[in-house]
């Protein structure tokens, strides 16, 4: 399957899972909102330029927003993590090896620790920005902000771990011939 087709299917799948499964679950607590859709942006190939990464993230976030009736609320954090992702990837792995020889970030291509750190930092960034936008609108206490960011991050990390184990992506080793 080509990369383009694979990512288009993922686009639809992540949106549908987020809207029709995770947002249908009766809320446990108001702090716990299960988010996983932004994993799509983390899974995009290394080879996409930073500009395009942001465009894709914006469209992706906005698509979710139109389903949830909040235009812009998810698009803004998505663009943020798309902007930060290349910096983090450069910091976490050696330039010459992985980025050129593997398609996209995964446990297989980056290793457990760097990939885990990448996901954790991006999740935390995403949730902080998202909750901050909400927090500004509703004039809540600071505890609301911290509590919701931490609780949502924890839930997201568990969900991402399960997803990674269920759909283990064995990255193809890219050769020059390809």
């Amino acid at each position, binding site marked *: 399957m080509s990369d383009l087709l694979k990512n288009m299917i993922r686009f639809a799948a992540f949106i549908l899972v987020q809207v029709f499964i995770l947002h*249908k679950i*009766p*809320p446990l607590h*108001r702090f716990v909102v299960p988010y996983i859709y932004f994993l799509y942006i983390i899974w995009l190939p290394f080879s996409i330029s930073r500009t395009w990464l942001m465009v894709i993230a914006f469209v992706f976030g906005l698509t979710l927003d139109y*389903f949830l009736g*909040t*235009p812009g609320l998810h*698009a803004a954090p998505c663009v943020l993590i798309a902007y930060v992702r290349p910096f983090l990837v450069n910091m976490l792995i050696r330039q010459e090896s992985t980025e050129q020889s593997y398609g996209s970030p995964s446990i297989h291509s980056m290793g457990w620790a760097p990939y885990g750190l990448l996901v954790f930092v991006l999740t935390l960034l995403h949730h902080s920005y998202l909750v901050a*936008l909400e927090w500004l609108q*509703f004039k809540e206490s600071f505890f609301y902000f911290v509590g919701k960011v931490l609780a949502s991050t924890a839930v997201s990390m568990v969900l991402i771990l399960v997803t990674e184990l269920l759909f283990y992506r064995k990255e193809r080793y890219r050769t020059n011939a390809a």
Partner: protein
Amino acid sequence: MRNIFLFVRRYFNFLFFLALQVLALYFLFRYNRFHEAAFMGVASEVTGRINERYNNVDHYFKLRKSNEILARENLYLRERLRENYQPADTSVQLVVDSIRVDSLLKFQKYHYMEAMVVGGFVTTQTNFYTIHRGSNQGVRVDMAVIGPTGIVGRVVNVSNNFATVMSVLSRQFRVDAKLIKSGERGIVGWDGESTQYVQMRNVPKSTEVKRGDTVMTSELSSIFPANIMVGTVDTFQTDPSSNFYTLKLKTSTNFSTVQYVYVVQNSQLEEQKLLEAATKKTNE
């Protein structure tokens, strides 16, 4: 000039990032203030269709519950028919205290349309429903939406065949309500905590409130008809620093199982709004 181009090229990614952020935030704040979002009409047609597909399946799991609720509502309405009441004494005659319905039609203030809920969620701080009726079927922005058991929300966006309804479980939703026993009014809103409770503010402490008291929409709410159930009093906090109660109401509508709703049009709303706007102008 050359330096500007160099600067733009050097920081293109960062400037592009800022531009996208500004665009996203513009969408968000414009929507929060006016509830009109860019491309929302087109988008809700598409999301509405997809929601409808999902709902075709989801629908069956809630049918039993919604049938029960509708049957109970029918029962309530049937109980109110005149034919049901017959005193033993034939000298007593029941008379409906008004003219016949046919001649009343031109005075009808609230018009009802039934609609099916095709999408919705209660998991976030601003929750919405999508209903399968849009501007082609006569739904307009700011119409009230009520269910068989009580208020549901307010229409905020319409496309040709679908409409988005802001549910009572949204932080921006407000409705004027009254305690049915004393007639004391207050404002009902949601604090975002539990999907089964809403808050009623501005009820004076002189009011006698008991657990289980019924709260209904008041006559002052211009979009909702009066006397539509909101909920019952669950607990009330007495904050010593204020002269008002904050009542915690158990909602009469179960927001996660809403299936059929009524969209209510207030045909005299426009006139009322014009007059209110004119009055505001004279006061300035």
